[in-house]
Every structure is written in C-alpha cells, then in structure tokens.
C-alpha cells in the first residue's frame, strides 16, 4: 500500500475514533479553558500589559493541553494491542507517524481556534501587528509541538510511567520552539520587534524535527 493511502486511511480512522470517544479533545478544551479563566482572574492587566504576557500564556496553555492529546493518541493504539497489528502489516510505518502528527495538529488547531477568541475577550486583546503573522505563528508553533510530542509519545508508549515520561522528554526539546512562538506572538501583538526571525526559526525547527521523526520512527516502533 502506498505511503499516501496509508496516511489517509490512518488519519481518517483516528479522526473517527476521536469523534466517537472524544477522549483527547474534551480534556484538552477543559484544561485550556481553565488556564484562560484562572489567569484572567489572577491578574488585573491593562491592554498594554495583556499584549506583553498573552503570548506566553497562550503557548503554555497549548503546550500543557497538547500533552493530553499526545498521550491519548498512542494510548488507544496500546489498548487490545492494536499497534502490533499495524507493526506486522506491510504498510509503511512512517505513514503512521505522519498520520498521527497530522491528527494531533488538527486537534491542537481546533483548540487554538476555540481559545483564541476567549483570550481576546478575557484579556481585552487587540493586535497591533498583522493578524496573519499570528496565524503563521500558530500553525508553525502547533506543528513544532505535535511533531515532537508524537515522536516522544511513541518512545514513552511502552513504559509504565508514560504520562510522566512524555512531558519530561517533550518540554526540554520544545523550549526553543516555544520561545520562538512566544516571541512571534508577543511581537505581533505589541507591534514591536521582528516577527520574521522567530517564524523562520520555527519553520526550520519544524523541518528538522519532522525529518528526524520520519527517519527514526521505524526504529522506535520496532524497539522492545
């Protein structure tokens, strides 16, 4: 079976599973909403101050919420040993990795779409820079989080403490991407500083870690 056909097949299956179980999306939304509400009641910020810290808040909320989805994505493959059925099938294993990454990208993208208007309302935000820069930053930052999260999720899948191990592996390696995404978001909101540099950094980061993930995934999946 071709790479593209397997990718499409697995992606459609994962979307259907999530639509029926709502394991990941419900937990992610609930968690992100809590962060938005708690911080908005904790601080009494002027619009200028909000623009300065909203970038960091939104990305921290997304990072923590994404971990919930990333844990779920592999947990459902472990139930009933379904992953073994995939491992012995003649389908390309890398397509599983890419399908999972795209699936997680969609889930986190939905989350971004839901919490962005909430941030605008709760923090009285109005972007001084162009909004399309925010869109680019959210797409590139989202991919940076999920591509590493999917890969490290596959590494931690067979450990007993995978819920703890995944953040331990993911957070340190995500720091450069997170800083770039926060910089791009803050610079756009405040209209100060360059957005170009952090966006280029994010794009390079995405390409590098997607390539590494695709190359190493088969080794990770077949490891015992």
């Amino acid at each position, binding site marked *: 079976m071709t790479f593209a056909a397997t990718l499409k097949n697995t992606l459609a299956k994962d979307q259907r599973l999530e639509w*029926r179980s709502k394991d990941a999306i419900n937990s992610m939304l609930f968690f992100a909403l809590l962060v938005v509400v708690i911080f908005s009641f904790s601080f009494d910020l002027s619009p200028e101050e909000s623009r300065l810290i909203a970038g960091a808040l939104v990305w921290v909320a997304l990072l923590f919420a994404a971990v919930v989805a990333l844990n779920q994505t592999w947990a459902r493959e472990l139930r009933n040993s379904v992953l*073994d059925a995939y491992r012995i099938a003649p389908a390309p294993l890398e397509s599983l990795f890419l399908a999972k990454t795209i699936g997680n990208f969609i889930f986190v993208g939905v989350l971004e779409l839901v919490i962005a208007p909430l941030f605008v309302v709760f923090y009285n935000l109005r972007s001084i820079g162009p909004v399309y820069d925010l869109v680019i930053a959210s797409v590139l930052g989202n991919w940076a989080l999920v591509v590493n999260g999917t890969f490290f999720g596959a590494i931690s899948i067979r450990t007993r403490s995978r819920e703890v191990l995944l953040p331990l592996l993911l957070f340190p390696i995500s720091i450069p991407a997170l800083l770039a995404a926060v910089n791009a978001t803050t610079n756009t909101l405040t209209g100060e500083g360059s957005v170009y540099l952090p966006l280029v950094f994010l794009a390079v980061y995405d390409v590098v870690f997607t390539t590494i993930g695709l190359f190493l995934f088969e080794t990770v999946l077949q490891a*015992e």
Partner: protein
Amino acid sequence: MNSSSNSGSIVSLREVSKLYGRFAALRTVTAEFSAGKLYLILGENGAGKSTLLRVIAGLIHPTRGEVTVLGASELRTVASLFGYMAHAPMLYEELSGMENLLYFAKLYGISDAAKCEQAIRTVGLDPKLTRRVGQYSQGMRQRMSLARAILNDPKLLLLDEPFSNVDVISARDMARLLGEMRDAGRTIFLVTHQPALLEQIADESVWMSAGQIVAREQGVSAEAIASGVTPVQRGHSQ
C-alpha cells in the same frame, strides 16, 4: 530474501534464543516446519509458546539465532503473506467489526469491502452488525480477531489461544474452519490449552517447556489430551 532456507520448510528456526535480562523465554530453539500443516504448540504456562509465535511474526527479535519465514529472514518483506492473532483481539473498541476490518484490509492493500464481509461471515459473524467491538462478547471479539487475521488470505497463520473464552460450539466451528484452511494448503501454528478441540485436525503437536521444544509427535495423543503431560515426561523421546 534468503534463498538458503530449506525448500519445503515454511518456518525455519536456527538456534533461536530470546532473553529478557537473565530470563530466557526461548533457549536455543532449532526446528523446521513444513508447509500445509496444522501445528499445535503445547506446553505449560511460561513455556515460551507465545514468545515463539511472536518471534515468527517478527514482533520480537531473537537475542540470538536466525528465523526464516516463507524463505525470508527479513520478515517485513513477507508481512502480507501471514496472519497473526494474539491474546488481545487487536481491534479498536470504538469501531464496528466491519470498520475495523476495512481499516486493516487497506493496510494490506485490500480495498474490496466484499473481502472483509467474506472474512466476517467465515468466522460466523454478521458483517452488517453495527455494534462497536467494545460492546462485543469475548467470544465475538475472538472471532472478529480471527477474521482480521485471515482477511489477507495468509499462507501462514499464527494463532495464540484462539479458543480462550469461546463457547464450546463456537470453538468447534472455529476448529473446523481451521481444518478447512489447512486442507486448502495454509500452514497454521496454534497455541492452545485445549488440544482436544483439534484432535482430528492437527497434524503435529509441538511440545514446549522452559523455552525449548522438548518433543514433537504426529497428531494429538489421547494421553496428552487427558493428562496434559508432555511426551518427554511420559518417557517418550523426541
């Protein structure tokens, strides 16, 4: 592909060992298995039966030794030619049986829904059943798992305790189906603690103990069915 494997031998194990730390799940197993036969893998719990099947399926790599399946030592190259059924059903609980099979069929390059329907009917289930697998009884899951294992029409079928939690009538139906598949030229390895179900069907019993093949005998002896004692323990040699 490894052309050096013995002709007529569908599975060849050469001094295969599997170690987990200091525990040896398989110890220097050497054996040849011919095509078109139904092999019963018997032995006590922890004898290494499931490990043997997983090594043949390529799910675990032997610590030492060489495994050749269908003439290939690189097992992924022959992945489309065998089916594997484990203890767990290897099915998504949120999908119906048909949806599960359609997904796995596509991984094997099969896009014909009729083949999935046929596999489900073959194991005695209804392909139009819309209930999700999570709502199936244990016996239905086992049957659906068998349907998943046979949907690519495999030359080699590896079954790990397919009759566990299955009622007697259904188990007999499954055993009859496996006999028909063997008669059609398929090779079947079947791990079970219920050898009586295959008394009339099995070609050879392979007895394992402590990670080794300790005896092989034609068919299934009535004594073994009654006592569950290996031929070695009964005083027969391999």
